[in-house]
């Protein structure tokens, strides 16, 4: 510990703390441009100058470590003068285009310019002119505004692992760019908008459509993957303008994926805004009558319900109640056909927690490509690797994950061979304290998914990854509704019901889809040509096209809802805008229908529904949540644990188009075409 005095206040800090960090601990605000607490320290903007007694010149507080007995002043006239000069220098080439700049109103440079050197410029010469760059469909550049803080270079290098930006040329001509013109290929590139302290890198799809002070902010949760990144939905009137991350060090730190940020334009067209019966627009009572007539004529074992990938917990819970009232148990929340043992929660969640990655000292990825399935979590793995003393291995299809790893094979056989003591990685695993096994959710959709799951669990036990103080066996889910659905028990009970597989065998005469689009409808129709499909959802896609009755539902931005992320953390999203037309939240559609059908569900509001849900699924109580689930039971639920020889296949093919919203988004189409070089038509059809 080091003792020092800052502005006459004594403080004790840990060794290696910079003066700037010590000031932050005291609540003293130090202006900064290049310093960012999630990136390495560059110390090149000089805005954070402070005065230290017995030092000849002002020092940059972000790079200067605290030392014993140091006396620091942050508010003397010397400091003010030094920062004034830095500000004057930075503003020499900065254009005066704040009124037309998207960053205006939330710009660090603008804010500090009020505080420092607010007396106009002494510079009477021509300003530097920089050509703008084409960094792809997501980031708009205005290089004249760049103050060369190099945050973007460090972000691409350190967080994304896609080092494509650099500082070219020198001095006044310093140019941030790619040299050879190319688009940014990172799934996290949108965060450059937040990282850039000025208006040099801004949101391209939202360019020129808003001023920050007009926006109303709503706290929400990202549903495009299972990480559950905390987001802020910025709206004006009833329109979503943009999505920005909210800092949550337990989940997403400060980042969100490009899909979470930019796919929102998919919610603005092709919306289902009214019920449809046989492809003809109808009203709610007609739709409900049609459904109840059909359900009344069908025996419960011929009815099946499938929940989609973005369905909230309340809706699934209400649906399960409705179905149990109707004595139907054919529920499934796994459209991809995966089957989980839900007797213990640790069979399907990320047991160590996302923050647990920071503690792991060896990470084995099995059948997953976290860069596509959970980009934010992948950045966390990379961060762990950069910290040192961590080895990463992959069993699965080789891909560029943004960091080096040992490839152990592409088939489940690699798991078996890792069980032995032979081999370099087995040796590493046997020596580390906290090994972490990450099993991709895509594995569970395989025919031998349960066997691979079982063997991965045995492997985790074999290397002591499961014990009372550490659970290193993790399942990385890739859709946001999965953990919540499994917690609720939205799966067919063993022996008595059937799920997606039964539907494909033609067992269902009535199929009720709650936002489920990723199904093979040709196969369903082939297995049972008379199947009656009910679809409730928000975008006209495969599900709605194949349905006999379509009901308009609210999207995730249009309702209050609870989502559970891959580590089992329940989080609440709030309503940002109103649903279009006649659309309603899924749970309220189900509640209304239940009354009409004569089996009224015992709740009248979302609060009552939640109270009921919390009493039956206590893990959803948000205040009581702890992410550390320790595996106590070790059930061997499988008789047949033979793994096939088939290679692992990637669960996600095209990161930018994985669901109805992103397939409907023009921005995501552009990303598919320009970044991946693929034809977006292949993906926009649906599964």
């Amino acid at each position, binding site marked *: 510990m080091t003792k020092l005095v800052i502005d006459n206040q004594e403080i004790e800090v840990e060794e290696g703390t910079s003066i700037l960090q010590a000031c932050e601990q005291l609540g003293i605000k130090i202006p900064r441009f290049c310093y960012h607490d999630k990136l390495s320290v560059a110390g090149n903007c000089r805005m954070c100058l402070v005065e230290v007694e017995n030092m000849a010149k002002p020092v940059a507080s972000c790079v200067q470590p605290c030392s014993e007995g140091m006396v620091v002043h942050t508010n003397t006239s010397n400091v003010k003068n030094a920062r004034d000069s830095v500000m004057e220098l930075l503003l020499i080439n900065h254009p005066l285009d704040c009124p037309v700049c998207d960053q205006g109103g939330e710009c660090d440079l603008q804010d500090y310019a009020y505080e420092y050197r607010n007396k106009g410029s002494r510079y009477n010469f021509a300003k530097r002119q920089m050509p703008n760059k084409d960094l792809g469909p997501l980031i708009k550049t205005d290089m004249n505004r760049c103050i060369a803080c190099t945050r973007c270079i460090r972000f691409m*290098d350190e967080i994304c692992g896609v*080092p494509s*930006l650099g*500082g070219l*040329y*020198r001095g006044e001509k310093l140019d941030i760019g*790619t040299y050879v013109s190319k688009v940014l290929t990172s799934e996290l590139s949108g965060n450059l908008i937040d990282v850039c302290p000025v208006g040099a890198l801004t949101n391209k799809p939202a360019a020129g459509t808003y001023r920050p002070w007009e926006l109303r902010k709503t706290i929400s949760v990202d549903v495009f993957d299972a990480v559950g990144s905390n987001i802020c939905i910025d709206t004006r009137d009833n329109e979503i303008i943009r999505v920005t991350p909210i800092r949550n060090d337990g989940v997403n730190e400060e980042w969100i994926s490009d899909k979470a940020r930019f796919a929102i334009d998919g919610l603005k067209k092709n919306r289902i805004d009214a019920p449809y019966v046989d492809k003809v627009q109808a009203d709610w009572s007609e739709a409900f009558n049609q459904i109840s007539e059909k359900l009344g004529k069908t025996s419960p074992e011929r009815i099946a319900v499938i929940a989609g990938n973005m369905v909230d917990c309340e809706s699934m819970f209400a649906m399960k109640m409705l179905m149990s009232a109707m004595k139907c148990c054919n529920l499934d929340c796994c459209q991809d056909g995966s089957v989980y043992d839900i007797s213990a929660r640790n069979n399907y969640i990320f047991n160590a927690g996302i923050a647990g990655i920071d503690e792991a000292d060896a990470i084995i990825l099995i059948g997953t490509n976290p860069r596509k399935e959970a980009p934010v979590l992948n950045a966390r793995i990379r961060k762990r690797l950069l910290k040192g003393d961590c080895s990463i291995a992959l069993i699965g299809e080789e891909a560029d994950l943004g960091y080096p790893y040992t490839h152990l094979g592409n088939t489940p056989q690699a798991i078996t061979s890792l069980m032995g003591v032979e081999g370099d990685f087995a040796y590493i695993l046997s020596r580390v304290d906290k090994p972490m096994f990450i099993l991709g959710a895509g594995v569970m959709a395989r025919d031998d998914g349960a066997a691979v799951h079982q063997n991965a669990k045995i492997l985790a036990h074999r290397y002591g990854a499961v014990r009372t103080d550490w659970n290193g066996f993790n399942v990385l889910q890739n859709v946001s509704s999965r953990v919540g659905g499994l917690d609720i028990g939205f799966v067919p009970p063993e022996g008595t019901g059937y799920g997606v597989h039964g539907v494909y065998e033609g067992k269902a005469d009535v199929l009720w889809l709650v936002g489920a689009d990723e199904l093979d409808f040709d196969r369903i129709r082939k297995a049972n040509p008379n199947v009656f499909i009910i679809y409730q959802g928000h975008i006209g896609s495969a599900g709605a096209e194949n349905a006999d009755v379509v009901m308009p539902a609210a999207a995730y931005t249009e309702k209050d809802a609870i989502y559970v992320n891959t580590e089992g953390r329940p989080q609440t999203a709030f309503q940002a805008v109103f649903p279009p037309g006649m659309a309603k939240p899924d749970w309220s559609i189900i509640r209304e229908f239940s009354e009409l059908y004569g089996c009224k569900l015992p709740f009248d509001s979302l609060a009552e529904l939640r109270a009921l849900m919390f009493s039956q699924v206590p893990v959803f109580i948000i205040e009581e949540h702890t992410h550390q689930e320790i595996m106590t039971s070790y059930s061997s639920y499988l008789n047949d644990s033979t793994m096939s020889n088939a290679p692992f296949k990637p669960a996600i093919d095209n990161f930018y188009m994985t669901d109805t919203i992103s397939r409907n988004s023009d921005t995501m189409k552009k990303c598919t075409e320009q970044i991946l070089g693929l034809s977006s038509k292949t993906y926009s059809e649906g599964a």
Partner: protein
Amino acid sequence: MTFQFTPENMKEAKAIIAKYPKGRQLSALIPLLDLAQRQNGNWLSEEAMNYAADMLQVPRIRAYEAATFYTMFNLKPVGKHLLQVCTSIPCGMCGAAQVLKTCKDRLGINAGETTKDGLFSIVEVECLGACIHAPVVAINDDYNEKLSSKKMTAIIDKLEKEC
């Protein structure tokens, strides 16, 4: 157009890389770029930069950054004889402007340009570190010191004759 080290240069490159510990290959970037520039007719093509970066397994952008930062790396083809005229203060006080003008007049090009026959290029450079014998013009790797208009013309004549 692909770039590849000649066997001799490859040997040299390996010797350069061996000077630095594992994980610090980036340190060998500038010597490798220099080697590549010498082999590539005194300029660095995109391929040559990519080749050096790939050889060290560092991101290509790091090579572009280094090559654009140092003015000694030429990013465009230059003439066979690159006249690097120092115009910093000591040389300037001893008549560098006159020397530069002589070069320009004699060859009919401006600083930063190359003659049509591809023999000569002129660049203005900062201090070459030989102020004691100012004014100085470095032609490729050789320093020509204590120059005057007359001497400069003679040097260019000589070089022209040799070709």
